Every structure is written in C-alpha cells, then in structure tokens.
C-alpha cells in the first residue's frame, strides 16, 4: 500500500507539473508571438486594456468575431494568407471587389489597358501604418514578390514593370494581352506590404490597412487595433479580436452568450436559431462564389438523356433542403455580376420524359427508361464535402422519379479519380467560380479545350473562339457579354448543370455593420467603416 501511495503521489505531482508547465507555456507562447511594434504601442494598450474587462463584448469599441480558419503566418503574399490579412483589415490591394464583383479603386485610382501595356495610377495620399508613403517602386516590388513566392501568380514574373514617376506603374505583359490584370490585382494576395521596413513578414507585416496587428498566435487567435495613421481617414473601431473557432455549435453559443459580436459562414442549424430572434440578431445572406455543379459526360450519355437530366434536377428543391446555406444557381456566378446573365431552362419533368421518348426510350416494368433493352443507369460520382453527398442523394431521387436510374460512387479525392479519368456519367464538384471579379478563370478551368475540368467531351468551336477572344478582350462590358454567350453555349449543350452557390451568410448583433456582409467574396472582413 505504501508503494501505491508513493506511486499515486508521484503521478499526481507529475500531472500538476504538466498542467502548470502547459498553462505557463501557453501564456508564454502567446506573449512571445505578441507583436511588439512601436507604431502600435498605443493600439495594443487599447486592446489589452479591453481584455481586462469582461469577456462579453458590450461596453467597448472592440469587435469580437469568430474565424473558421487560422494560418501560421501573416505573410500577405504567401499561400492564401492574404485572404486573412484582408479579413483582419491589415492589408489592402490596389483594387477591391464590390457587391457586383467589380474591381473598384482602393490603393490605386485606376488601371488602363492599351494592348499589352497597362498603366496603373496610385492614389496620392496612401501611406503605410508606419507613416511611409506608398510608391510605385514599392508596388512593383510587391507584385514581383508575389510572383516569386506564390505559384498561382507566377505569370506576373514574366511581365516587365516600370515606374515613370512615384505614382505611376507601367506593366508590359509581353507578347500577349493580359486582360485580367486589374481584377487579378484585386486579389488579396496582392495586398501591399512595406517591404523596406517589414522585418517579420510572418508575424508583423507593415501594410496600409485600417488596422495593425497587436497579437498573432500562429494558427490561433488574432488581435488587431486601429491604425492611427490610416490614409483613408477615421477608423470606426478601436480594434478587433478574431477567435479561431472551427465548430458551429460553440460559435452559436458564443454569440448567445455575447462573447462575439458577429461571424460569417453560419450553419443552417444556427441560422434557424438566429431567425427566431430577429431583434437580437441581424442575419444577412448573399450569394457567394462557391459553386456546386455537375459535369455531364457527353462520351457516355446521349443528348436526350443529358437534356432530361437538366430538366429534372430541381435546384430550388435542393436549395430548400439545404436550409438557406445555398441559393439555387441561375448562372455559375453570383447573380449580381454582369457576367451571370444567362438563361437556364426551368424544371420540366414532363418535357424531360417526352425528350427521352422521342429519342426511342420506353418505360420498362420497373418504371425506368430503357433503349434497346438497356435501362438507363447513371454513375453519379461525388465526394463527401460541401454538401455534395446530400446533393447526390437528392439528385438520385429526383432522377428516379422521372424514370432515370442511377448509382452513387463516392471518392475521397475527385481530382485524382473521376475527374482525372472521366469515369462517370454525372460528376459533382464544388469550386470557387469567381476568384477575383472576372469570368475567365472559371471558363478557362471548365469549358476551354483541354481544361482541367473539361474532361467529359464538351467541345464547341464557336465557344472556343469566343474563349480566345475573352483571353484578349480588355473592355469589361464586352468581356461580360462574351462570358454570357460562352456559358449559354455550355448550358444549351447540356454539358454542365449549375446547382447552387453557397451563401455568404453573416450574423451580427444590432449595431454591427460593415463586416463585408454584402460582398460575395470570402476574403473581406473588417474595414474603416465597420461599426459595433
């Protein structure tokens, strides 16, 4: 017994030591990663003083919110970290995207194209949070750095740049016209950093945004404070805290307990709760840019079956089933965009049946259409993410109701399986359809000859010709017109079906506004106009 007592005491002591060490180290790590920036000292005090107060967010001017993602670095140009420095209000790009997916001026006044040459003019009064003015040379260095360290933008490394004066940048795109330069420069990865004075890109980049970093825990919480030197004028908030919370239920509970003021990517279950108390919670939902769609295999299905599928799939019913998390797509892009003006045939199951019967299909004893003794049995391939599993089941039911039988094939990784080898009749997929306010990326990815997702036999010469035009057209109105025609061809060919766009849903306490709640893109958050 004495031996046991000793062992037990030892174990208890070890646990206590571990607990103390763990807790102590957590605090130490937190303080280690706290950014000591001279310029931000006062702001830090504001934020840290607020931490002394109650956790509930009333009574101060610090916005508290939850973030579903957290990254190990604040280097704006690397990976997708710029999305989050933009959400935190730290970094700004030359242009930003508005509610209609249009690139509007931010740090730059304008960008004008003349064939292979773009001339970008910067605003006069822009300066970094350390007070240093933004120069054309600095912008060029930033663009070159993005091209160097972010593989998705390596094409910018092939362009040549000049700065004829302090506020003008001339970009020469070589032999080929690059019409999406302006909208590409609205990508948050092109947020501008003071490369001369930033010493710690991962923890404390000096940017132009309305907020500066005060505490950054890699893959954890982030605290920012008002940038007292903000070039754009007054900043409404004193600061903000972004708590890293992946799970939906704790976010809902934190909202109910008053520990956070707002968040986006609200789940359907939480949405139901918030809708019941409209005086306590303001919910704003707009179509986002994340598209659920399916590819119809032209090599394995004839035109009548593909048309019947598209006339049968009831997107409204699917959106209703998904309880407010998606909006039935009227185009692959948010309906507010100029390049989303296409016409998709309405659901008409009678017409679908008639089309099949005209093509020689007859209903067999099992209620399934068949031709030459072969009943239709579609292979619906999907992966279990972004509600595609639910979509697959709902679509299977809808198709069965009109006499089209199917079976489901689930894959872990669609890109290396059914997309790579086109082994499907109907393939479900989800992707961002509009990454920076231009239709070319999506069209190039799904409709162009040889495109990564054009794997199921879609080929149309007229469409390809217009895609080539789209690759060089610089006028945005003409680009939208071309994009609408291209997408319409794919719709008329029954090559694809655009099912739903995930909603960008934000819940806010009364008084909170300006949390990018009306913008369809995922990479905006707080700015100078955000209020609490």
């Amino acid at each position: 017994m004495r031996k046991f007592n000793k062992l037990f005491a030892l174990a208890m002591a070890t646990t206590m030591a571990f607990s103390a060490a763990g807790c102590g180290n957590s605090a130490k790590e937190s303080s280690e990663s706290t950014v000591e920036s001279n310029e931000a000292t006062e702001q830090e005090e504001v934020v840290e003083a607020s931490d002394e107060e109650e956790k509930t967010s009333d009574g101060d001017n610090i916005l508290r919110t939850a973030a579903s993602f957290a990254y190990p670095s604040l280097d704006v140009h690397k990976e997708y970290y710029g999305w989050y420095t933009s959400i935190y209000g730290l970094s700004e790009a030359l242009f930003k995207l508005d509610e209609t997916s249009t690139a509007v001026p931010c740090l730059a006044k304008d960008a004008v194209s003349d064939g292979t040459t773009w001339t970008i003019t910067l605003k006069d009064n822009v300066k970094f949070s350390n007070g240093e003015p933004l120069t054309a040379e600095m912008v060029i260095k930033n663009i070159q750095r993005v091209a160097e360290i972010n593989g998705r933008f390596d094409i910018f490394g092939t362009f040549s740049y000049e700065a004829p004066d302090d506020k003008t940048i001339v970009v020469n795109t070589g032999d080929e016209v690059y019409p999406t330069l302006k909208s590409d420069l609205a990508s948050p990865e092109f947020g501008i950093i003071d490369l001369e004075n930033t010493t710690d890109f991962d923890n404390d980049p000096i940017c132009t945004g309305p907020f500066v970093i005060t505490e950054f825990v890699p893959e954890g919480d982030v605290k920012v404070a008002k940038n007292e030197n903000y070039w754009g004028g007054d900043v409404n908030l004193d600061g903000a805290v972004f708590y890293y919370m992946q799970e939906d239920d704790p976010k809902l509970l934190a909202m109910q307990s008053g520990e956070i003021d707002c968040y986006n990517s609200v789940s359907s279950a939480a949405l139901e709760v918030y809708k019941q108390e409209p005086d306590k919670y303001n919910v704003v939902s707009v179509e986002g840019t994340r598209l659920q769609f399916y590819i119809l295999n032209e090599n394995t299905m004839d035109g009548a079956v593909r048309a019947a599928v598209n006339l049968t799939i009831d997107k409204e019913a699917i959106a209703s089933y998904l309880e407010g998390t998606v909006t039935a797509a009227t185009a692959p892009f948010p309906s507010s965009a100029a390049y989303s003006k296409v016409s998709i045939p309405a659901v008409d199951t009678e017409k679908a049946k008639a089309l099949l019967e005209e093509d020689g299909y007859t209903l067999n004893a099992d209620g399934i259409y068949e031709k030459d003794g072969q009943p239709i049995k579609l292979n619906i391939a999907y992966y279990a993410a972004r509600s595609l599993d639910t979509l697959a089941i709902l679509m299977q039911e809808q198709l069965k109701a009109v006499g089209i039988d199917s079976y489901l094939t689930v894959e872990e990784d669609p890109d290396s399986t059914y997309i790579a080898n086109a082994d499907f009749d109907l393939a479900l997929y989800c992707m961002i359809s509009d990454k920076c306010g231009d239709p070319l990326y999506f069209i190039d990815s799904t409709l162009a000859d040889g495109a990564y997702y054009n794997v199921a036999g879609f080929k149309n010469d007229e469409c390809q010709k217009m895609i080539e035009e789209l690759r060089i057209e610089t006028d945005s109105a003409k680009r939208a017109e071309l994009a609408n025609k291209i997408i319409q061809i794919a719709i008329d060919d029954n090559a694809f079906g655009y099912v739903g766009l995930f909603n960008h849903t934000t819940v806010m306490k009364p008084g909170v506004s300006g949390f990018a709640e009306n913008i369809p893109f995922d990479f905006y958050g707080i700015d100078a106009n955000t209020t609490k």
Partner: protein
Amino acid sequence: MNNKVIKRIIELILLLVVLSLLTFALMYLAPGDPAEKRLSSQGVAVTKEVLNAERARMGLLRPFFVRYGEWLWGIIHGDFGISFKDDMPVAPKLIKGLKNTVVLALSSLMFSLIISIPLGLVAAVKKNALIDHVVRLLSFIGNSLPNFLVSVLLMYFFCIKLNMFPIIAEGNLQGLFLPVISLSIPMIARFSRMIRTEVLTQLSEDYVTGLRLRGVKEKYILLKNVFYNSIGHIFTIIALQIGVLMGGSVVIETIFRWPGIGKLVMDSINARDYPVIMGFVIIMGTIYVGINLLSDLLNKVIDPRVEV
C-alpha cells in the same frame, strides 16, 4: 530482468520502423494530392502546370523509397521535416500539440481515477445494492454518450445557464476544466466498471475468505489486500487508455479550441500533410509502446511474480 528490458526496447525500435514503413506506404497509396490540397485549400482551381510545379517543389515526384529513406534518415537525426501544408518545421508543431494534449490527457486521467476508483470499489462492495445499480446505470450512460454531445451540453450548462465559464476559454486552468470533464465522463464510466469487476474477482479469491475467517476487518481487507492486488490490472487499463486519450481527443480539442495534437493531426490528414502525420505516428507509437512497457515494469514492481 535487464536483458528482458533491453530485448523489449529493441523490439520497440523494430516495431517503430515497421510501423513507419507501413504508414508511409499507406499514405503513398491513399488517394489525395498534398500539392492540390495546398493550392486549392480555399476552393480555387489551379492549372496543371502550376500543380505539377508545386508537386516537383514538394518532392512528390521522387520514388517511394527515396522519399521514405530521406524521411527515416531525418528522423534518426531528429529532423521531422517540413510541413506540406505551410512549409513550417514539423517538430515544433508536434511538440506544441503534444504538450497541450499531454496536459489535457493526464489531467483527465487523474480526474477520472479520483472519481472512478471510489465508485468502482463501492459498487463492488455493495454489489446489487442501490448504489451499485446507480453506478452501473451512470456508467452505461457515460459510456454511450458521444463526446461532441457531452461537450456541447457542458458548454451550454456551465457557460450559458450557470455563466461560470466563458465559451471562448484561453489555454489556462479555467480553460482546462470543461475539456477535462468532457474527456473524463466516458473514462469514469469505463474505469468504474472495470475496477468493480476486478475488485469483485479479488473478493471471490480464497485469500479473502481466509482473511475474513481470521477476523481481519473488512475495510482493512478491502484497502490493504483487495485494492492492492487490483492495482496491476488498473495500471494496464490506464496504459491502454493513454493511447486512446492522446489520439482520440480531437473532438474535444476542436470544440474547446484546445490546440492539441489530435486536432493538428486531423487537420493534417485533411491536408494530406504527410510529414506531420508520419511524425505523429512515430511519436504516438513510441508513447503507446513505451507506456505499455512501463506498465509491465510497474506490474513487476508491485507483484514480483509477474513476468515482463
């Protein structure tokens, strides 16, 4: 004794090599491309050219044995490699996660033992009495409740209804309370039942009858003999549970924002971050096998008749 321990340690090393090779092979064969996961982590599609360039940069195009050999050579030299997800060194990530998980796991284990040992003893001594039925019922319920449900219910009760804790807790003692309770509930349920069974087994032994016939007090028999003889079994239970605790607390860690290794590994699996997963397997394998060895040695200390 010493030779046997050395033999066990050699076996442990061989086991870890086989384990690492198997894990590496399974991940090599598993669907999913780390380069694609990294470039499209926000749902943005990339071109084949960009994808291939990234694969080459990450070293994914090299043969299996070259990659495995390099990784093994690194591990031998204490280098766990670079994360596929963000190019950050793997070792600090694992150490930070492991440290937090060890705090959570050991705290939960101690809390569970403090509650379940008396419960198990009482339930055994009062077999078929009301208290025994209550313990068994609670044990059944505790074992059946899923972790996420327990966590959310505790959060709702303690944070919203009683307002005792914040939902958004920091990594301190206050923040440790609810995760520990959540992790402990199923463990208390399991431990108390196992302890009850073991104590009942001991109580039916002849030596207990003999002690009773000699007039030794029941309380003395229970604590001095029965419980002492059950300790070896309890150590084995604990040893088995530590592995489960270390790797299985991912739900708790995610809900309570506890930056432990379970959450790190789940994120790494989703991102196909093989260096982190491999590092985790090696560390967990070492801990699991090491604890089992330690448990055997402790059993030997308690009862010299036990063979290591």
